């Protein structure tokens, strides 16, 4: 492989990895607090992409405004889903919440199919994003710089929120011991709603940028990135935000580079993540940065 090709693949990997990381954060935060896999998270990502499409194309909003509207709308969706489908099941066996989440996932996908139809939609891309930047022999889309940058900013913001603010403190406390936190006077439901809102906002941001990178929007576009981002969260160590970022970037790199170096494997691309998952579960079940969660006896 030529150096130019490698650089291009490197940026590709970084882009895809950043997007996985953004989605993975939502999984890892919810799992850290509720010990629950929010199967519908990938579909919130899809809804985010649709929101910006309709914001920009149908309502003719300026692009940045449409992006903000899409993020806010998706955050609201995440909170509503939690309120309707998950909160009534907090005291129920874990399997019930999981089944409910799978139900929500199918609901969102099919609602998308009913409302938006199955027709793939082109994403609206601002002019300056489409023209590649040319450095000698290297052609790189501006989006490949933007995505890692935006991701870095968003993650910084999130880390600040989680480690430097009172709601963040409450979140970390809940993930340690939900009952004690409740006794300390923290409104658990509100913090959980905030968690869902934040996770969904990040997923929507990822959805928007995904639609810029791969400009086709359809109701099932969230399924695979959703699964893979969850795997990224497990690989990085579920419950850890830094782990989710690391896992996301790692998974993106493995996917892009494996296909770049061994093109004959391109058919298996979707299977890499799952193989990686099983390997990680075998050798380091708590993930790269995760701590061991012990059941009390």
């Amino acid at each position, binding site marked *: 492989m030529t150096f130019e090709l490698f650089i291009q693949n490197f940026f590709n990997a970084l882009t895809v990895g950043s997007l996985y990381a953004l989605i993975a954060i939502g999984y890892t935060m919810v799992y850290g607090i509720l010990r629950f896999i929010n199967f519908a998270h990938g579909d919130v990502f899809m809804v985010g992409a649709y929101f910006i499409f309709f914001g920009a194309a149908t309502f003719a909003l300026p692009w940045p405004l449409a992006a903000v509207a899409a993020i806010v709308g998706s955050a609201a969706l995440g909170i509503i889903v939690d309120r309707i489908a998950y909160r009534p099941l907090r005291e129920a066996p874990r399997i019930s919440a999981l089944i409910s989440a799978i139900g929500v996932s199918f609901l969102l*996908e099919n609602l998308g199919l009913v409302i938006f139809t199955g027709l793939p939609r082109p994403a609206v891309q601002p002019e300056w994003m489409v023209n590649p930047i040319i450095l000698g022999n290297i052609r790189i889309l501006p989006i490949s710089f933007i995505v890692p940058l935006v991701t870095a900013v968003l993650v910084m913001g999130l880390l600040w929120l989680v480690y430097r603010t009172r709601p963040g403190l409450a979140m970390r406390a809940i993930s340690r011991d939900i009952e004690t936190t409740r006794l300390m006077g923290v409104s658990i439901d509100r913090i959980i709603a905030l968690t869902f809102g934040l996770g969904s906002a990040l997923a929507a941001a990822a959805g928007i940028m995904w639609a810029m990178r791969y400009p086709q929007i359809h109701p099932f576009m969230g*399924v695979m990135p959703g699964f893979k981002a969850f795997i990224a969260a497990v690989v990085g160590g579920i419950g850890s935000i830094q782990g989710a970022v690391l896992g996301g970037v790692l998974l993106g790199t493995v996917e892009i580079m494996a296909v770049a170096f061994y093109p004959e494997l391109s058919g298996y691309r*979707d299977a890499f993540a*799952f193989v990686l998952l099983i390997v990680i579960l075998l050798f380091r079940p708590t993930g790269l940065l995760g701590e061991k969660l012990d059941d009390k006896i």
Partner: protein
Amino acid sequence: MTTSTAKTGGYTGIDLNADRNRNSTLGAVALAILGLVWANGHLDGYQMQLLNLVAINAILAVSLNFIYGFAGMFSLGHAGFMAIGAYVSALCILTPDQKDMIWLLEPIWGPLNTVHTSFFVSVLLGGLAAALCGFLIAFPVMRLGGDYLGIATLGFAEIIRVLFTNWPALTNGAIGLRGIPAYANLWWNYAWLGLTLFVILAILKSNFGNVLKSIRDDEIAAQTMGINTTAYRTMAFCLGAFFAGVGGALMGSLVTTIQPKMFNFLLTFNIMMIVVAGGLGSITGSLVGAAVVTLMLEWLRIIEYPIDVNMTYLMGHAWLQVLITALALAALWFSFRQVRKSGRGLSMKKALWSLPIVFCGLILAGFVLRWLNADILPAEFTIPGIPGMRMLLFSVALILIIIFRRQGMMGSREFSWNAFYRFFRVPEKQKNIPMAKGAAMEISGVTMRFGGVTAIDNLSMTIPEKKVVGLIGPNGAGKTTVFNVITGFYRPQEGRVVFQGLPMTQLEPRTVCAVGVARTFQNIRLFAGGTVLENVMTGCHVRQDSRWWMAPLRLPMFHKEENEIRRKSYALLARLGLAELADEKAASLPYGAQRRLEIARALATDPSFLLLDEPAAGMNPQESGELMRFIEKVRDEFDLTILMIEHDMKVVMGVCSHIWVLEYGRLIAEGGPDDIRSNPKVISAYLGHQATETA
């Protein structure tokens, strides 16, 4: 295990109806076979296909329920196991000639081109291959359990799909396999369903079933019982995978064409829907669910096709309009009431009940528009078919089931022949049994055992009429068990209870109430959500002659009786000093008032015999003093016999004219209060043997 029979006092735990039940099962199987013969001759191709799908989905649902509901594992890999079963089986039954025709892109792998087996062997091999893969996947992730297993099995199913798409030499790639011999007819499918049920029920009914459930309920406790939880989990998972593979193999032969993309997550979702709708942990539920969900999935296809609405036809038929308007108005009224009832502020319930309001409102608005001859609605229009609507409804249904009725249709209950026959049993005309004069109830030789524990041992009591009598004894003496035997909650192994010449031991609790025996509970059991008045009115139900369907019809008989019940309940509350609390929530009453209300509710059933289980529990001396007067008042005013269990000796000695003393299920003394007070056996039972020695 033979030595233990002596200790358990002859209790063997063998179902006395085993013969009848086995014959019933054989009969049901014979009937099912006849049904299949009939179906084979009379149904058309589409109906046959559905019937076949029901059987295959039942196999898949039972196997998934075995993993979810009994072994307590969350697996999302069913589609993957089905794919393996389908492909292995197809590779075995395709003839070598066919294989030459199918594998065009790339020749089939080595020796596979000559493999050819019978259908049964191929299905078996499909199942075994799936079980083997189940073992390989279970081995690494089983010790993690929980959600990791779910995500790992989901990943496994995806890997299988990707692998099968990209391995043309084995699977012919994305094109898939066509022309698989259609061996999977009704006979094969239902025979495999029978085999699945036989194997899984045999395991679940044995002690190994208990072992699996113990791991599901508390893995740590199971380990301390010496159970190798990992081994059993792996076994259960592989068995589930085996039958998933079998289901996949049958499915492949039923539809005759398989492609990797068929076996996606949607397939797992459908089966999960069946299991959840039927009830996690109920095999019966999975069978019922398989039939219901399979048929629903087919019938709901309608809503994905366009529907023609002919308004001219509708407007030409007055009765149709009246009917639809009436239905819409009724639904509107009902939903409005529900919304009003759901209180202030936004809530889930309110939001849900608003949907029918909007829907009915739209229908009515449409009618009004037509009557006004407005041309806003065209005379004929088509509601376009909306793709995705069907799965949308199904996902909503799944969420609603899991939130509002988590136990599904069956919960964890199972069909049993005993329950079946109990349902159809006609109560036998009982001969009157002569009783001693002046006796309200005769208990003779009653023995009640639970497993090896004898809770009541050969108890005989003759309870005199119109008296307050007491049953006392230390904790665990079996007092409440006596009450439960009298009121029909327990069936004693020996002896009988005769009330007013009527043998009681075979009666249901509600019949016991109907013949005039009422009771209260040690731990108060009021209908907590209802008001005081509603609790008492509920007690009147057993004497009510009108029926529920008379309520919407507003029949005069219903009105008269309803008013009568209300009046009688008020009067009862007034007599017991609860009248001013009539509209309070029962749960909000102070403790003493709750006890009195429970007695009021019991009295509302018009009993001639009242059982009070620790009425003075938790009361201070002043309150228990009031209670004594209250009990005597009840006895005199309502003219009945009262048998009470009580620990408060002051109350017992104060109001009871005759007392029985139980210890370890045996009667150790009976007599008047003074006899009991001085009886050395009673003193030692209560205070220990030392007390009698020093006394």
